[in-house]
């Protein structure tokens, strides 16, 4: 059963704190993605990773960075979180851009 996992599922941080969101997949997919979802704005691509240490900015990368040291694991890092980064973050993976499997999401609140 193909699966994308995300940890934590819920997170509350104070403005200025660092945030680490983790994503794993067991499908050996080369490509992984981070999106954020906000009401009325849909799903916005933050970063895409084509494989280990091969990352590319998406549409809204400012304020975020990523790390991919193993194919099955992709991290999203917020250095000094801001209140406008409160959102639901989805990780996805896919063998190609033609189909993506989404994780359950992380609901991040920055106070």
């Amino acid at each position, binding site marked *: 059963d193909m699966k994308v996992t995300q940890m934590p599922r819920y997170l509350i941080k104070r403005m200025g704190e660092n945030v680490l969101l983790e994503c794993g997949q067991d499908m050996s997919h080369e490509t992984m993605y981070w999106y954020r979802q906000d009401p009325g704005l849909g799903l916005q*691509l933050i970063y895409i990773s084509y494989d280990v240490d091969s990352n590319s900015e998406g549409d809204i990368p400012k304020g975020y960075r990523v790390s991919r040291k193993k194919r099955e694991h992709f991290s999203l890092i917020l250095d000094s979180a801001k209140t406008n980064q409160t959102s639901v973050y*989805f990780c996805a993976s896919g063998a190609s*851009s*033609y189909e993506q499997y989404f*994780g359950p999401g992380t609901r991040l609140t920055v106070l």
Partner: protein
Amino acid sequence: GDSVTQTEGLVTLTEGLPVMLNCTYQTIYSNPFLFWYVQHLNESPRLLLKSFTDNKRTEHQGFHATLHKSSSSFHLQKSSAQLSDSALYYCALSYAQGLTFGLGTRVSVFP
């Protein structure tokens, strides 16, 4: 750049009636992949339909859509809506970097 337009933000209808969600797109690519993702409340998006073949109807779980390259459209239809169809529906376009999503259409089906 590439874009996807979903004209309805919210669609409300009575169970048993037909539903159609509009999706048009813009892309520089002559052979785009188009998708419909569905997201139920407190869940992650999951793939509902996909197509890259012009003028060919694709069906899944009672929903169907036809990619029309001449009009750059990929509308989603169902002949008889069910209560369980209440969800957020995203149309998406595949490009080199990943998926571009529309803003989504929320469907609410009432008894």
